[in-house]
Each structure stands twice: as C-alpha cells, then as structure tokens.
C-alpha cells in the first residue's frame, strides 16, 4: 500500500471497465427470470445471455447428484441447503483497499508484493487494481462481468470449454453457468509476465447470498502467471456455494495457481475446477482447503499435448464436524506428458475427508509419467477415506499411486520430547511438518507464514491427542 498511486491504473477500477456494474442492489430468487434479470443487470452480450439460458435448461432438466453415484457416495448431500438459493448482488465499491473488512484485508499479501488484485464482496467486485508494468503488457486481473465488455471475444472463445467446467457436467455446474455473478478474470497475453503474483479474494459477509463465483484464467503462449485466489465468508445460517474455475495454459505457458479456501463454518460448497494444459506448458496447482461445513471439490488437470506438465499439491485440515471431499483427475491425453499429485490431509475431532484420485492415460499417450499420492494424518476420532485409481490405456507409461492413513509417529514424538519439547508442542511440530511440503510451494513468505500460523492455530484448538 506504500506504492504511489500513480504507479497503478484504475486505482478503483470500477469506472474504467465498461461501466458494467450498477450501483443499485439486486435480489432474486433462483429461477428462469433470474437468468434474464442478471443479463439485463450486467448489460451482457447476446451470446452470454444465450449461454445462461442454455445452462438454465440443463439445470431444469437435471437432477441433483445422488449418493448412488460413486463420486457423491460419501458426501451427505442431503444436508446441503439446496432449496435455499438466493441471488443478491450488492455493489459496494471501495475507495481504498484498507476500507475492506479487517478479516479479509489482513490475509491479503501487502500490495507492494503483488502486481494486481481483484476483490469481490457478496458477488460484486469491490476493488481492483493493477500495476502499470503489468497493465502495459495487457495483463488483466479484473471483474469478469466488466471483462465481458473489454475482452468479450476472448472470453467467448474460452467460455466453459473444459471437460468438467461445462453446464451439463452436473446440476451444480448448470446452476453456476446459468446464474453466475461475481467473477475473477485473469488474462496474460502472449509472452507477458507480471513481476509479482496476482491476487484475488472472493468474500461473502451478507446473509442469504448463494455463492456463484466464476473464475476464468487465460495464459497465452509463453506467458507466465502466479495467481493466488482466496475465499472467505461469514454466515450464521447454512449457505450454498457453487463455484467454477477454468484455467487455460496455452503452449509453453507457465502457470502457478494457488487456491485457498477459508469458507465460514456454515458454507456448503461444491466447486468444479479444471486446468487445461497445452504443449510444453507447465502448471503448478496448490490447493489449500481449510474452511466450510461441507465441501466437494472436483479438481482436474487435462494434459492435452506433448510436453504438458501438471503438478497438483493439496493440503486439507478438517476439524470438528467438517466433511471435505475431493475428486482429483489427471488426464494424460497426449504422449510425453507428466503429472504429479500430492494431497495431504490432517483430520481431527469428528471430521471426515474423502479423496478420490484418478490418473487416466488415453490410448496413444505413450511416454507418460503420472504419479499420485494421498497421505492422511488422523488426530482424534476422525475418518479419512482414500480411493486412488488408475486407468491406463497405453503400454509405455510410468505411473504410480498410493494412499496412506496414519497417526502421529511415537518414535518421532519420543525423539522430539527427548530434546525437551513438551508432547503437545511436539505433536504440533509433526502436524506442521506433515503439511510443510505443500506450504513450501506457496509463493511469498508472508503467505507461507500465514498458513503455518493458521495450521498451528487449528491444531491448538484441539486437546492433546495422546498422552
């Protein structure tokens, strides 16, 4: 924030991007009229209105997922507030970042450490800013609604082109496609590169607001991007969140996507996130899941052409009654592609995690390497389910998968205690150490320290595990 204002363009960019966001509040029931109302409200191009209508037709036709389907078998979907769908858009443009609520401001990296930022509050953009050095290259981090007016053709080309980010993947994606409001748009043109990470925050602190955020990230040929997107909410009644993230890494691009999830205690979320990786492009995806009452995430990397490289690292800390369910998918569609996944979960109290992991190697995708590991550390009476899978239709591949469920190691605890460290502190060190390999992939020391502190705090909310 010490950066002089003239180094930035669109200090409060709400006026400079096509005037899409209006000042008045919008409150809607989720129904067919809402589709039209949203399109009107944001003065959307005809193709987006058509896309929403089409998605709404899917939504009306489809059933909610059923626990008979394998991917949903272990999630208590019946406890989701599915009928409680409200759309509230309350524009609240801020004059300065520091006027954000402190609980959202403090977890953000200080402005001098990032090249651009967009903040959403209750489904509407509240603040956005980008460094001049990045803006000059055409790099954009902004409200997706406004971007429809400035980058409409580009968005249309990429809109919901993923294997799972499509309206008919399930009823949740249909809902998001039809009624999305609030969106993060990140675009890095060919060869461009910001000096520092870009940052996005999606926050809700209003009552009766279903989260329907949509994130679209396009990184063109040879461009580089680090994006950190955090999610936070405060609610007193059960709320629903249906979210989509689409990432397109074009030829030779380098993309690091750090996804942080800090939903409030009553949020019930389904997210569908899909990265599409082109020839010789590199993706590093770090997924940190800490919040929410119940969460289901579909996290998928598609390696589309030779040389595509995808690393997925995930960290989950589930406590109390939390249910955190993740389905990961590594698709090797082309020869000579590489993927490596490491997801680590810590569970305490009565929490439950589910990990479904799949590596799929298509016929002809020779020379593929695909690895997958899921490690679960149990504290208390928690339950971890790990269901790793491989589907290999090529013969010249190197693939492995493995899952472990364990408790704190008594020999390690003894060693630490023998050096004077009290048992409880030794347990905390081991928990932090277990998650360390993932935290090390997070950029910016302040972000890593913040996560370390959160994990320590979450651990310290629990009683000593063993004695």
């Amino acid at each position, binding site marked *: 924030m010490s950066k002089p204002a003239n180094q930035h363009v669109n200090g409060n960019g709400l006026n400079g991007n096509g005037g899409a966001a209006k000042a008045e509040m919008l409150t809607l029931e989720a129904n067919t009229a809402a589709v039209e109302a949203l399109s009107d409200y944001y003065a959307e191009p005809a193709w987006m209105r058509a896309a929403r209508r089409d998605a709404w037709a899917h939504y009306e036709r489809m059933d909610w997922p059923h626990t008979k389907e394998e991917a949903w078998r272990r999630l208590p979907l019946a406890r989701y507030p599915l009928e409680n769908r409200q759309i509230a858009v309350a524009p609240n443009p801020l004059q300065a970042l520091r006027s954000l609520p402190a609980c959202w401001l403090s977890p953000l990296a200080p402005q001098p450490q990032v090249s651009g930022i967009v903040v959403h509050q209750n489904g509407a953009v509240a603040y956005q800013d980008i460094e001049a050095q990045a803006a000059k290259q055409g790099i954009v981090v902004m409200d997706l609604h406004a971007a429809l007016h400035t980058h409409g053709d580009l968005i249309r080309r990429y809109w919901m082109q993923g294997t799972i980010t499509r309206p008919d993947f399930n009823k949740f994606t249909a809902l998001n496609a039809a009624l999305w409001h609030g969106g993060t748009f990140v675009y890095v043109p060919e060869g461009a590169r910001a000096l520092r990470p870009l940052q996005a925050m999606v926050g809700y602190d209003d009552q009766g607001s279903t989260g329907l955020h949509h994130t679209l990230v396009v990184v063109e040929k040879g461009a580089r991007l680090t994006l950190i997107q955090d999610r936070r909410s405060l609610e007193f009644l059960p709320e629903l969140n249906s979210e989509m993230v689409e990432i397109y890494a074009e030829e030779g691009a380098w993309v690091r996507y750090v996804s942080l999830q800090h939903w409030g205690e009553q949020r019930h979320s389904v997210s569908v996130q899909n990265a599409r990786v082109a020839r010789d492009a590199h993706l590093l995806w770090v997924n940190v899941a800490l919040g929410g009452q119940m969460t289901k995430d579909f996290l998928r990397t598609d390696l589309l052409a030779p040389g595509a490289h995808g690393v997925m690292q995930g960290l989950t800390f589930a406590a109390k009654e939390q249910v955190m369910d993740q389905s990961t998918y590594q698709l090797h569609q082309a020869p000579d592609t590489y993927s490596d996944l490491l997801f680590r979960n810590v569970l305490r109290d009565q929490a439950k995690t589910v990990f479904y992991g799949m590596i799929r190697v298509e016929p002809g995708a020779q020379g593929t390497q695909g690895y997958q590991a899921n490690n679960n550390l149990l504290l208390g009476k928690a339950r971890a389910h790990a269901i790793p899978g491989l589907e290999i239709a090529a013969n010249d591949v190197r693939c492995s998968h493995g899952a472990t469920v364990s408790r704190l190691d008594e020999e*390690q605890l003894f*060693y*630490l205690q*023998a050096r004077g460290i009290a048992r409880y502190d030794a347990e905390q060190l081991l928990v932090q150490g277990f998650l360390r390999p993932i935290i090390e992939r997070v950029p910016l020391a302040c972000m890593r*320290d913040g996560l370390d502190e959160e994990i*320590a705090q979450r651990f310290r909310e629990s009683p000593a595990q063993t004695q």
Partner: protein
Amino acid sequence: MEQTLAQTLEIRDLHVRVEGKEILKGVTLTVRPGETHALMGPNGSGKSTLSYTLMGHPKYEIVGGEVLLNGESLLALSPDERARRGLFLAMQYPVSVPGVTLYTFLRAAASAMRGYGEAARRSGDQRLHAHLIPAREFRQEVNAEIGKLKMDQAFLNRYLNEGFSGGEKKRAEILQMALLKPRIAILDETDSGLDIDALRIVSEGVNRLQAELGMGLLVITHYQRLLNYIRPEHVHIFYNGRVVHSAGPELVEKLEAQGYDWVQAEFGV
C-alpha cells in the same frame, strides 16, 4: 547429602521389562558431574534398553528400582521433563522427521529447555513465535556451534535427519547437545557408522562440551574405538541386563585383547 547428589545420575537396582520379557535385571550405576563412564557389553546385553529407559521411552516397563537425577526420581516424568532436568541421550538411530527442518527443531528444543514456552503460556502470549528464542539471537548461537562441528550451514534447512549420512546424524546429535547443555549425557553407540574423521570431530565436540559444562558422561559402546578419543575413568561391563564388573580404564584394553568370552565364563548365568 544435597551436595553430593547435585547433577548426579543414580541408577539403583533397575529392573525393566519389554513386551513381557525382563531385559534389565538390577542395574546399579552412579555418574557424577565431570565423570566419564564407559558401559561396554556384547550385543543383546540390554545396553540400548538402559539408555531408552533412562530417557523415558514409553515402550519400557519399569518393574523395580529407581533412577534419580539431583536426588529426584525420574521414573514418573515424561521424556521432555527429564530432558528439561538436564538429561540428554545421543541416540544410536536418530529418527528422521520429514517436514521439520533442523533449524526449526533446534530452535523449538532450545526454547523449551530455556523456559520460553512456559513463559509464553503464563503470560498468555498467543503469537506464533512467542514461545521461541528470538530468531536473530538463536541464529547467531547456532552458527557459532555449527562451525565448531565443521558442519555446513545448509544443514539447518534440511529436514531433521532426513537423508543424513551416519556421520551427519551423529554430528547433528552433538550439535543438539551443544545447544541444550545437559548435565548428564548418555552416548548410545555414538561411534557406529562413523568414519575416522567424523569420529574425531564428534569426540572433540563431546570432550569440549564436557570441559565447558562439567557434565557427567555415560558412554555406551560395543567397541573400544570411541574410547580412544573419549577417555573414561570408569569402565563397566554390562552383561545379561546388569553391570557385572567395574574397574578403571585398563579394562578397555583387556576387553579389546580378549573379547567378551571370558565375561561369559566368569559372569554368565
């Protein structure tokens, strides 16, 4: 009485069971400040059981006897409480702790030993590093010690014992001893896995610390090799779960020349 017990480790008629089987059958031994004791015995005689029992490993069941430090019984204390009273065990097989760097571990341990954790708890200071020695102060101290042990500073950023060679592990043990400043140190087969250079560096470290801290040393070993560098005044033969014979340093030579066979003949059951 207080005077003579200060910083003294006393083991009295200690009986210990592991998984139902009695391994220690009445160990009696006293180590006073500044003294160096060697405990020598063949494999399987119970030497490591003794060292782990003294440190409080939960696997070992005490069925009789007493262990005192400063005149206070250790037996009801947890390993960390024993450590904070001045007992240190340099382990034969230090476990690796992935994800916890040597530096993080050393800082946590030294802070606990010096009461930082307690102070933070008492004052209710919840900040992440409140229970730790200030980083800059500790970094200087570690750098000084690490230089004396001819270790590279890059070591500090590696995960604790993870992928360390035998020599690196043992040096890291002595580094810990240097920072934690015990009153009584037990070296459990510290010479195993060490080449001659590493053996020299480790022994010099131990001798220097003993001179600085005046600590009592209990050196547990199978071979006399280490005892060429760390010279004991007292040598004990450990056999079948107890000390069967104690003498001066000349006993080392006898064991080296004659092996353990005569021990069995003389003291075997």
